[in-house]
């Protein structure tokens, strides 16, 4: 039984230059205890998806449709009061930038305690004690002493830990981490990722990790969703995506990243640039950069957007090319042959 169901989520932002369709028909489910990785480059819509799930988008400036269902309740149509009661308790979010997500004027302990007080009718002292416990839980040394420190007295890694403490203090069933380690060094990133994995085990939460780093996904995710220009282009288990990728964009991402455990004479980039969301190509949005396009007969790629179709159970791909042809093109590409 999935905990969160997202059905045909669409988010558009009207601008002076036209409508920006940031998220275009995203659907997925996630169970408790599982981790979903959402991968994509800047502008692919991965962060907007997470903000829409948390109902953090300002509805004055965003046109949102579709369904975000948590325990039978559709949050897209729910009123602000209901959404507030879900936020924190049912779902919580860890933001990308720990430097700017904490209020500089309040002590770290107070900020964590505030998140607890919103949902629990407790005294200030009790909430602060709970905050100290949470800071201890996420590995802040001497939490009783450090709780009264201000954010500037914390290092980047400790601030991210404080953010995690804040997100976890109401035992949320769904934790969304939006680029949780992008601003951090690798050694600190390793600490934070192992912390997220630990708390997931302890609280049996559903976790969504949004990142552009394929290594992070490989480490934490059970299932992976690859996004490009607002759409899901491939979706499957972590092994499907890394060992049997089919969508040329996924293949391109895997082959263009230099690897720590690999020697190559030359990187194989994806040519061109991601399209502007204001002027999306008529057909497949990846077509102008696609290296497999020549294998498709006719001009389907330039005229129609392919559907996200199942290629094998649990593995969906959005591409006009036949599955067998996709696999052989992918193999060649990953072996550095085209």
């Amino acid at each position, binding site marked *: 039984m999935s905990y969160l169901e997202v059905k045909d989520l669409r988010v558009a932002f009207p601008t002076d230059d036209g409508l920006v369709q940031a998220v275009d028909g995203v659907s997925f489910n996630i169970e408790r205890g599982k981790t979903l990785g959402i991968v994509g480059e800047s502008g692919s819509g991965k962060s907007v998806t997470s903000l829409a799930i948390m109902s953090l988008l300002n509805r004055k400036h965003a046109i949102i449709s579709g369904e975000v269902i948590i325990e039978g309740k559709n949050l897209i149509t729910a009123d602000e009061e209901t959404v507030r009661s879900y936020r924190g308790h049912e779902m919580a979010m860890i933001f990308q930038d720990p430097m700017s997500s904490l209020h500089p004027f309040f002590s770290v302990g107070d900020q964590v305690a505030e998140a607890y007080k919103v949902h629990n009718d407790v005294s200030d002292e009790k909430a602060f004690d709970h905050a100290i416990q949470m800071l201890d839980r996420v590995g802040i040394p001497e939490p009783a002493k450090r709780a009264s420190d201000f954010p500037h007295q914390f290092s980047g*890694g400790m601030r991210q830990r404080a953010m995690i403490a804040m997100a976890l203090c109401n035992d949320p069933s769904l934790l969304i981490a939006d680029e949780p380690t992008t601003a951090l060094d690798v050694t600190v990133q390793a600490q934070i990722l192992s912390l997220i994995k630990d708390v997931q085990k302890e609280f049996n939460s559903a976790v969504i990790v949004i990142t552009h780093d394929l290594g*992070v996904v490989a480490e934490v995710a059970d299932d992976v969703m690859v996004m490009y220009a607002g759409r899901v282009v491939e979706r499957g288990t972590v092994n499907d995506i890394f060992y*049997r990728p089919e969508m040329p964009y996924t293949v391109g991402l895997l082959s263009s990243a*230099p*690897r720590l*455990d*690999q*020697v190559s004479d*030359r990187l194989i980039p994806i040519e061109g640039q991601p399209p502007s969301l204001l002027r999306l190509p008529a057909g497949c949005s990846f077509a102008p950069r696609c290296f497999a396009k020549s294998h498709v007969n006719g001009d389907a790629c330039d005229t129609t957007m392919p559907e996200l179709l199942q290629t094998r159970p649990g593995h969906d791909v959005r591409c006009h090319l036949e599955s067998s042809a996709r696999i052989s093109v992918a193999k060649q590409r990953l*072996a550095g042959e085209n």
Partner: protein
Amino acid sequence: MTEPILSITDLQMYFPVMKTGLRTVKTGDVKAVDGISLDVMQGETLGLVGESGCGKSTAGRAAIRLLNPTGGKIVFEGQDITNASRRELRPLRTRMQMVFQDPYSSLNPRHTVGRIIAAPFEIQGVKPEGGIKKAVQELMERVGLNPEHYNRYPNEFSGGQRQRIGVARSIALRPSFIVLDEPVSALDVSIQAQVVNLLDDIQKEFKLSYLFVAHDLSVVRHISDRVAVMYLGHIMEITDRDTLYAAPQHPYTQALLSAVPLPDPIAESQRERILLQGDLPSPINPPSGCVFRTRCVFAQDLCAVDMPELREVAPGHKIACHFPQISLQKQIEIRRPHSDQPMPPSSIQVDRPQTSGPASGRDFVGE
């Protein structure tokens, strides 16, 4: 090996910490770079890696005298430039250049691309054959920009294209040495590969030497011939790249490499990770002795007393550690995943203690 194009000896770069009040008094120093020595050889790429705050960018800037070093010696193409004046440095600037990290703030938004790339010619009073405009358009073409976009402004370009503009500007005067300060870290993966390939190509074409400053160990592995690892103002380990990635000896290098997640779920789940505890100590008040000892699992009493010298443990392989760890680190396999081809002859052979197992991930997930 050939002559070093740049030779740095015991370079120190301190920034004073001032306390302002009725009288401004100096209360200490941020020891951003505290006695590093390295040589960049003709035509090679030396990677300089480390985490934020380790002093790698400062070292890069001081190396081409964008900063005035506190101590040490810098020799560029046989000339001591440690204390060279601005006037003495100016002609040298045609030989050494820099590409900056942030393609958004390193280009003047009020100047056209043509003017930005032409600036080196104008500042140095160089008159290229056929005129400046022609030279600029050739440069734009060379780095993969449309020469017709000569009159556009930086805001009309994407991050990757802006970084190409920065590269075009840096090669305008045909330098011999370029400091690349995190040139691709602000770019998306697919674009990153384009710029890395461009840097590779122009290095070959113009016989450039690079000092490549970066925190991304995977990119550094791809582009470098040799790699130096910095921690808190000191060089911890320096060697050729294959040795560094396959058989690192310094506990910090080992921890750093083990912390990078691999885009390979099965290999990833079977790796042993060395989790460093805590954070980087303050460079204002670094630990006594070895600067890494506060986070090192192998630290002993000696480490608190004595800063280990950078000493040679094998030809071309130097480390600064009292207790180098040779066999503990499980070596990262060098291979070409997604391919059954044999290893290219250029890469070194490494001990592969576990290749028979599923460590490579290939064996049991095949079709």
